[in-house]
């Protein structure tokens, strides 16, 4: 039995606030742990500094810095957009649900309860930004040969300010339901604008100069690169602007803490605790569903500017397409995949490999598998809500197959678009044509493996802990797509690249086509059998 010591006296209001503000504070780490962190985090920089005599061709450094300077503002703006969307369901200050119900409804100043949490969130944002800046600075140090101290301090400083601004942005969105609604409403259009800007910057580099002055994303990139490039036009102004905007945003978030509505705090507390619980049990599907559900309550009536088709056979694909347009997370994933592959293409690690194409193909396959898993979201919903189709005239298995039409079309178009982009960027026809052919062969494999994963129940932590069964469950949901695609579609061309004797291209193509069709048919049969076990 727990015994409660008698209170020495009623606490003063100030004491009460202090106690409340410290309720959720983490225990301070020991000095030894702090020392360990400092040594651990700085060791790569020290190693780079020691290995500073690596010769880097000067021309290559200039090209690389110019490329990073051109793309970094777009990437950082994309990061802010992602953070803004997170701010629609999570937030800078998330109390527990019970705290919202009991403490926030009591006559205690809300800002006093929220400010310590906001300060902690802002500090965390700055720290994460600093670490990301530090890692980015390290990557640049591998390629360019600037003074280590100035390069890293600029990257860390810029990262910290960017992180602080991003955290303040989350707080700003959290403070108003209307702002969260606006972010949900306009972020797809903004993502499209960003992609367009990226394309324009690629085609017409002078635009990058304008983009770098267009907001905190551009100013931050100027500051970060100034340390590596040994300065740059107007970097001091950019640094001042970044600092002023980040600090002002953080200050404003702190000052207006009392404006956060209790209903919003409750909604976010529910969402975050649910997502945390789902992730604790490695139930990613449930976590994603809870996040979507939290965002759904904010969405206004969906637009009806396109009337649905009248043909029965088109209604399921049309509905899927509409849902993809409404929740275009996959667009961001496609962008991230292309970005990662592009960054990898310019990094020394890839250049050092005998055949960089193999690494790019690997990254592309993994990225495409992740995109495909998002594209089959409608099928995942169908299998998660098995009786929702009871008013439809088709069997559950047929409805499930119908849900694969739009993902297949979108992935096929994305593959064609990616290779068309590569051709426009100057890749030779001798690479683009076979690359496109092999990528198209990968489409059914990726779709069917993602569909199988979507038709399986979520992998609970209990299942994953079951030794071989757990490994099989995880493999069947996540890794089977990339592995099969790599083994069936891209192994034959890899054989050509690495074979000691030249192989006939026709033989390679025939082998790839034959095996990919055979495996696709097998996967299709497995998927169909699996669908018959789903009730509905």
């Amino acid at each position, binding site marked *: 039995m727990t015994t409660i010591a008698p209170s020495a006296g009623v606490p003063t209001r100030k004491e009460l606030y202090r106690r409340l503000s410290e309720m959720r504070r983490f225990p301070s780490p020991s000095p030894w742990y702090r020392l360990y962190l400092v040594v651990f985090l700085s060791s790569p920089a020290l190693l780079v500094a020691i290995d500073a005599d690596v010769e880097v061709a000067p021309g290559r450094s200039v090209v690389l810095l110019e490329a990073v300077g051109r793309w970094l503002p777009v990437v950082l703006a994309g990061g802010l957009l992602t953070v803004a969307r997170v701010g629609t369901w999570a937030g800078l200050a998330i109390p527990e649900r019970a705290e919202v119900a009991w403490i926030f409804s009591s006559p205690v100043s809300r800002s006093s309860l929220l400010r310590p949490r906001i300060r902690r969130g802002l500090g965390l944002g700055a720290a994460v930004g600093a670490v990301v800046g530090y890692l980015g600075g390290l990557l640049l140090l591998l390629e360019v040969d600037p003074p280590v101290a100035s390069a890293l301090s600029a990257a860390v400083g810029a990262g910290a300010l960017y992180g602080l601004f991003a955290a303040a942005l989350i707080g700003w969105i959290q403070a108003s339901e209307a702002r969260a609604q606006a972010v949900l409403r306009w972020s797809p259009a903004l993502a499209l604008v960003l992609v367009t800007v990226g394309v324009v910057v690629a085609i017409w580099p002078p635009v990058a100069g304008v983009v770098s002055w267009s907001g905190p994303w551009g100013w931050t990139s100027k500051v970060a690169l100034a340390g590596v490039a040994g300065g740059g036009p107007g970097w001091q102004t950019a640094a001042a602007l970044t600092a002023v905007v980040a600090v002002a945003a953080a200050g404003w978030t702190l000052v207006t803490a009392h404006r956060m509505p209790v209903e919003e705090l409750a909604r976010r507390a529910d969402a975050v605790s649910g997502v945390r619980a789902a992730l604790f049990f490695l139930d990613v599907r449930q976590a994603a569903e809870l996040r979507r559900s939290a965002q*759904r309550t904010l969405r206004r009536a969906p637009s009806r500017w396109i009337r649905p088709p009248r043909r029965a056979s088109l209604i399921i694909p049309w*509905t899927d397409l509409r849902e993809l347009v409404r929740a275009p997370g996959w667009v961001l994933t496609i962008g991230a995949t292309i970005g990662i592959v592009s960054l990898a293409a310019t990094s020394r690690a890839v250049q050092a490999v005998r055949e960089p194409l193999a690494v790019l193909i690997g990254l592309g396959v993994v990225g495409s598998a992740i995109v495909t898993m998002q594209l089959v979201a409608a099928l995942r919903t169908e299998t998660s809500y098995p*009786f929702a189709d009871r008013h439809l005239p*088709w069997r559950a298995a*047929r409805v499930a197959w119908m849900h694969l039409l739009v993902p297949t079309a979108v992935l096929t178009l994305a593959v064609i678009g990616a290779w068309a982009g590569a051709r426009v960027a100057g890749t030779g026809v001798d690479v683009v044509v076979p690359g496109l052919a092999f990528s198209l062969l990968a489409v059914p494999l990726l779709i069917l493996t993602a569909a199988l994963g979507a038709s399986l129940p979520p992998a609970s932590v209990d299942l994953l802990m079951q030794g071989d069964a757990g490994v099989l469950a995880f493999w069947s949901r996540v890794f089977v797509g990339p592995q099969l695609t790599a083994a069936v579609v891209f192994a034959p061309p890899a054989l050509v690249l690495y074979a000691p004797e030249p192989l006939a291209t026709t033989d390679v193509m025939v082998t790839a086509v034959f095996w990919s069709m055979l495996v696709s048919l097998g996967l299709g049969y497995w998927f169909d059998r699996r669908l018959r076990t789903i009730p509905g």
Partner: protein
Amino acid sequence: MLEVRGLTKRYGQLAALEDFDLVVPAGLCVGLVGHNGSGKSTAVQCLSARMRPTAGTVTIDGLDGLDEAHGEEVRRRVSYVGDAPAFYPDLTVREHVELVAIAHGAGRGSLEAAEALLEEVDLTGRADFRPHQLSAGMRQKAHLACAMVRPFDVLVLDEPAGHLDGAATAWLVRALAAARDRGAAVVVTSHDPGFLAGLADEVVVLVEGRIGAQGSYLDALSSDAARRSGLRPVDPS
């Protein structure tokens, strides 16, 4: 026409339905009544071919309802309203009704029909809401709208008046009577005899999975089986 013969459903040792026979010709409304656990829901799930019985046959307009080969044709003919509404979480009420109407080939006027039905069930103001934003009664109305917007030959409803207010219940009675008058075979379960008064042409009293009484509204509900189940006829007026 709906015809079931020797329908039996067992859950282990429990016989939820035993040797159940029923013929519902086109243009007739049959009410299934009984206390909780008497087998009403099991019966309507089996006779709408949503559940495979342990034994027996289900024939819908001459088609074997339990044959997988006829599965989709049966789904086209039978509209089923279960006791628990199930929706897609990401579609609005209007999108659900339109989806069902178009999927069943309701034709050129399907969108207009959907809109008219939403107005009839007083859901126009909530048409752009998602299911989780609705009350239980409104979800039931949306569920009924989905079942009514599509063409059907057989209409099977399990406790459809649950959660509905007086006005909505009155609309439901009118809508079921209209469906019957258009030539549909209607089967509806209820534990409220008042709901079936003036609607059901025939009433079946289920007791422990078996038919306890069958006949006109007054005859069936005046039987010993109905009295043992605590059911009494209600004056339709």
